[in-house]
């Protein structure tokens, strides 16, 4: 019989250990899953987790996938810390890409050093605008932000589709539902010729640094933590929930919008209906795996990017189904949430006492 005994204080060691435990458990479950699918499990693990790290191209791709995940997850984590659940980052990502892309297409074929910064601003603004809807509805009407932000993902997907089928369709194209390829000055600079790694990764690093300072040193970060852990104490301190809802939605919306813009103006190079690749949802996993801590998110984002690239490689090399990666990611989040119990509780085996365990209140 297994019993849970509450700790007097949360265990800091467990806080940092459990993500590694979750990764290890996911690997084990992954081995079983591959065996079940009739594939050589160790070969699969090697292809997914080691091979991408062995080549320059693999590392370059790693940053390409990690950049949007880290950008979005950092923003989401700031909100999650406050108990404000923006889970519609995918929609904000789409609207950011769309807004930034529209700037490029509007001035086509003009270009210049002013264009990309303008697109970035538009991208962030697009994300903020989309995030402002749940923020406004929550602060004005106390509407549940989880459902609203999520519903807006589906709306954004349809909106993007309507745009590339209609006004933004490439006039010189073959009637495919996609925009023009962005002009030269409207694409994100790559870090090395012939590789797809781009400067977006540096923005992600900057977001991590800024998020770390905000949460660790700044009073706004402190207010966010208090609101998330004890809303009544936040009221006592005089922290405005309305203000914090807006701040967190603006930050997460801006970062998601920026991530969308980098994707559209980077690896993709145009607006297409398939732009939303699920980064907005995977970033939720990244945020939790990183313990809602920006430094942790940096590591978690890289790991998650690895599962994307390795997963693709494994699909090709071992003809694994494409959904394997998302199953992997889902399991990872489950194991992490399950192992969270170790942070606040000690496990005790044995003595099957019917009495419920616990310290006296």
């Amino acid at each position, binding site marked *: 019989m297994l019993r849970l005994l509450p700790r007097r204080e949360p265990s800091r060691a467990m806080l940092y250990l459990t993500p590694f435990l979750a990764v290890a458990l996911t690997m084990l479950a992954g081995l079983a899953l591959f065996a079940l699918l009739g594939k050589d499990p160790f070969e699969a693990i090697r292809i997914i987790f080691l091979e991408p790290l062995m080549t320059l191209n693999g590392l370059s791709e790693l940053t390409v996938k990690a950049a949007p995940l880290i950008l979005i997850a950092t923003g989401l984590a700031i909100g999650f810390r406050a108990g404000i659940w923006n889970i519609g980052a995918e929609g904000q990502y789409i609207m950011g890409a769309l807004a930034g892309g529209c700037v490029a297409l509007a001035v086509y074929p003009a270009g210049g050093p002013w264009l990309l910064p303008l697109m970035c601003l538009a991208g962030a603004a697009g994300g903020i605008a989309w995030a402002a809807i749940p923020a406004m509805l929550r602060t004005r009407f106390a509407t549940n932000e989880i459902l609203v932000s999520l519903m807006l993902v589906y709306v954004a997907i349809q909106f993007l589709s309507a745009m590339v089928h209609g006004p933004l369709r490439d006039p010189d194209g073959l009637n495919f539902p996609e925009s023009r390829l962005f002009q030269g000055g409207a694409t994100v600079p790559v870090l090395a010729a012939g590789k797809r790694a781009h400067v977006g990764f540096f923005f992600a690093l900057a977001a991590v640094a800024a998020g770390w300072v905000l949460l660790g040193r700044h009073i706004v970060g402190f207010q966010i933590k208090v609101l998330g852990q004890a809303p009544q104490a936040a009221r006592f301190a005089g922290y405005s929930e309305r203000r914090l809802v807006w701040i967190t939605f603006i930050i997460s919306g801006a970062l998601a919008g920026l991530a969308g813009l980098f994707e559209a103006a980077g690896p993709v190079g145009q607006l297409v209906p398939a732009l939303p690749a699920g980064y907005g949802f995977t970033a939720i996993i990244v945020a939790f795996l990183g313990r809602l801590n920006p430094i942790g998110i940096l590591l978690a984002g890289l790991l998650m990017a690895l599962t994307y690239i390795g997963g693709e490689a494994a699909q090709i090399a071992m003809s694994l189904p494409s959904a394997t990666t998302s199953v992997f990611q889902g399991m990872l*989040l489950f194991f992490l949430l399950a192992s969270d119990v170790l942070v606040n509780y000690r496990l005790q085996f044995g003595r099957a006492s019917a009495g419920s365990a616990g310290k006296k209140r």
Partner: protein
Amino acid sequence: MDLLTGILVSLVVAATPLVFAAIGELVVEKSGVLNLGVEGMMIIGAIAGFAATIETGSYVPGLLAAMLAGALMALLFGVITLSLLANQVASGLALTLFGLGLSALIGQPYSGKSAGAFPHLYIPGLSDLPLIGPLVFGQDGMVYLSLAVVAGVAWFLHRTRAGLVLRAIGENHDAAHAIGYPVVLYRYAALAFGGACAGLGGAYLSLVQAPLWVERMTAGRGWIALALVVFAAWRPWRTVAGAYLFGGVTILQLHGQGLGLKIEAQYLSMLPYLATILVLVLISRSRTVAPASLGKPFHATT
């Protein structure tokens, strides 16, 4: 079938998966648990039901498999949130992400196959009546089942002692524990029921509505079901009203052209989601009556 009958029949078809998912989640939330993983349980139910039906060639094992798969997903959520006390919001999201991935993995060999037309009730004479015939006496069996489940839940919650205990646990789990009711056990049971219902709702999509398997075919219906429970103020029959209202919005996109609406398909497809937001805004202005322990972790300390 004239246009009006066609619209009303497809309204019922669009609403029924929402009825299943929402009534299941209603019971879960009445017990004080917030399972945001309805979407994940639905999609797993959709593929499990579809695969079992294709493999056995019969609907009964298909529907049973859908219920079982949904319930298993819910129990997984239960282990993490009730026994290991993880955050319910995060765990619900995890369940959805996991369900979407796993269903795609399981479903790969089944894409492109069709389950064939689901049998409809036919009572000679009655079913041939205009309008009323197809609407009241000519639906598929699942429609009647969904309404029976709602009636059963309404009866259970307000007419049985176990239902009273379930509501009490959702209101104040510490007090219920102090009196001596097994809080966690009731919640596991509620979760399993909610999962089975969500599984049925998913299977309705893949076996009746479509009837074929498409990845991510739930398309946010699990989330809409969650909104419906709030909309219904946790009252069973109001979830039905809400679901049929949403069914009406959904079929606008099917019949939009027929009704002469000159709007791009994409904008019509947005309607159910926009309607959900609108409804959430409207109801959040009134004082709602969520179960007081909803979403709070319970650990018996004394």
